């Protein structure tokens, strides 16, 4: 996948310094923390990280679906492009935000089995999504629902309009979710691990579908996943998160070829490979240790207790800044130059 920068696509989403502070009985937790990124038209940004890294919360914060203050306080700027420039979504009223959700920004989830309402027909659910944001007759909405079902590759779409969710398999339900998300031609689609719960073959189909739809509509996709194979397949740019902060940002090719942050390198190394003759029996590579508890983050770089290149006195002294490297890369590591090109 080559980053398609030939055409100067404009930025549709500009997130600056986003952080969410949760109030818990044991103290405040700030995850994500100081996250900034941009997404362009037609571009796929992958958000990679382990559980607890803050990738899902980031997307919920963009959609303003986190718990309300004071349980969760969202800070920063989330600027979405519209006809006349940018609008900060965090400053909108609830009513205005409701008009943005499903309309300009859409989201699809991990669990297609439970994301559809069991007592409504598929056609009605898609039509509902349309009628929230467009003033059309129910019949017109049903027609558009039919178009969308065809667009996402569901067989016998007319029959499916009248089906209930329990008539459909997981892969088909996920396609329906995509249809609902795309109903109003959003500028940005946030896909939160959309294929994690699906079979591998279905996964491939869904990913292919998303790429095809992106090419057709030019929407930006933020793809949240912990699966680097999927990242390689769909992403143009990658953002790696750890303990709520961005630790590396790069175009997908350079990231895989030359990861700069030891955590990224560790992630790439730990992807299991089909053994070549003679290599059987080799141990699986892991990153030792565990993801830190957000309440008691290690001092300095949060990854240092698990890092192979940890330098006491330096890495645990102060939080490394997110350093720009060239035009398109950023890395949060004090030692990236010294570590050199550690290709997986």
């Amino acid at each position, binding site marked *: 996948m080559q980053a398609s920068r030939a055409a100067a696509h404009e930025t549709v989403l500009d997130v600056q310094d986003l952080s969410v502070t949760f109030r818990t009985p044991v103290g405040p937790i700030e995850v994500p923390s100081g996250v900034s990124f941009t997404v362009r038209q037609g571009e796929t940004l992958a958000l990679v990280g382990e559980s607890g890294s803050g990738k899902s919360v980031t997307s919920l914060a963009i959609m303003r679906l986190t718990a309300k203050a004071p349980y969760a306080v969202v800070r920063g700027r989330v600027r979405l492009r519209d006809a006349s420039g940018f609008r900060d979504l965090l400053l909108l009223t609830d009513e205005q935000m*409701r008009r943005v959700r499903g309309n300009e920004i859409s989201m699809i989830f991990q669990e297609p089995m439970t994301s559809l309402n069991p*007592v409504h027909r598929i056609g009605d659910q898609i039509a509902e999504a349309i009628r929230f944001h467009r003033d059309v007759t129910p019949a017109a909405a049903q027609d558009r629902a039919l178009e969308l079902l065809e667009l996402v590759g569901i067989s016998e779409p007319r029959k499916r309009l009248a089906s209930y969710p329990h008539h459909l398999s997981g892969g088909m339900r996920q396609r329906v979710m995509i249809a609902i998300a795309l109903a109003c031609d959003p500028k940005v689609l946030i896909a939160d691990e959309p294929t994690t719960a699906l079979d591998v073959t279905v996964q491939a189909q869904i990913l292919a579908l998303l790429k095809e739809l992106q090419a057709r509509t030019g929407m930006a996709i933020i793809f949240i996943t912990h699966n680097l194979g999927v990242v390689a397949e769909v992403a143009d740019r990658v953002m790696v998160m750890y303990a709520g902060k961005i630790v590396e940002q790069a175009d997908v090719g350079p990231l895989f070829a030359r990861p700069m942050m030891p955590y990224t390198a560790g992630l790439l190394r730990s992807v299991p490979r089909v053994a070549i003759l003679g290599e059987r029996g080799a141990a699986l590579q892991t990153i030792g240790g565990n993801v830190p508890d957000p309440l008691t983050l290690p001092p300095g770089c949060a990854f240092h207790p698990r890092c192979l290149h940890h330098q006491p006195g330096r890495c645990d002294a102060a939080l490394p800044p997110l350093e720009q490297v060239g035009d398109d890369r950023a890395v949060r590591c004090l030692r990236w130059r010294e570590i050199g090109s550690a290709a997986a």
Partner: protein
Amino acid sequence: MATDLADTRKRGAEPEQTIHVSRNRALHRFLRHRLAIFGALTIVALVVACAIGPNITPFDHLFIDIRSRFLSPLTDAYLFGSDEMGRDLLARLMMAGRVSLTIGFAAMVLSTIFGTVIGAVAGYYGKTVGVVLMRFVDAVLCFPNIFLLLTLAAFIHPSMMTITIIIAATSWMEVARVVEGQIRALRERDFAVAAEMIGASNSHIMFRELLPNAVAPIVVAATLTVARAILLESYISFLGYGIQPPDPSWGNMLNNAQQYLNTAPWLAIFPGLAITLAVTGFNFLGDGLRDALDPRLEG
């Protein structure tokens, strides 16, 4: 892995067999519940009898014939006998049935609607709103119903409408509780979050997404409410605060029959039997529905 969309469509088109089992399963379970069938049939019989009966019996329920007082059942055309004024008991019974069943049903509709709205709002918003509303429900529940009913009935001139409203006012709490529990649980489900995701408003999510998923317990609560309402109407009519003679109601017929218990017991037996059949029928129906619609018993 350059799969073009045509191939994707072909491979993704698993032939899905439409599964209709879940609908029939509920019906199937219901039909196995013998008491529920008995209940349902009883109610249907009562409703039909009370609806068309008074139009086909030989006697009008208000027709007074002193010469035919206290006839025991099966005398001439008086199938259930006659009362102290010579009125045909069967005709009066069926006329009374219209009143009692109508009040029961109407009170159920009112209280279910009110209880559902309160429960849905309390369950959906939770926190302060939920707590305040549910404590209000608890407070009303603590009130001794009969006393409340009687007090209200003493102040308001009893008519079918006022009695319906009064009974509804004391029957909505159970439904509210049931709905609150259901909505509170359903609110966390993925499809509720997904609905928020596509920009649905709060009231849309409450009433069009969540509530349709909670229909089963509401239906069960509603059937049991009808039973209770019929019983309550009989109580207050029996005590003299409900439907006033000469309009018949099963309750005031019982009241009337008290003084003639030794000489003409059938005047008490038949209305009592009618009340028992109606209440039991609705209770069995409710039980059957509860078992049939319980998703946990699925498969």
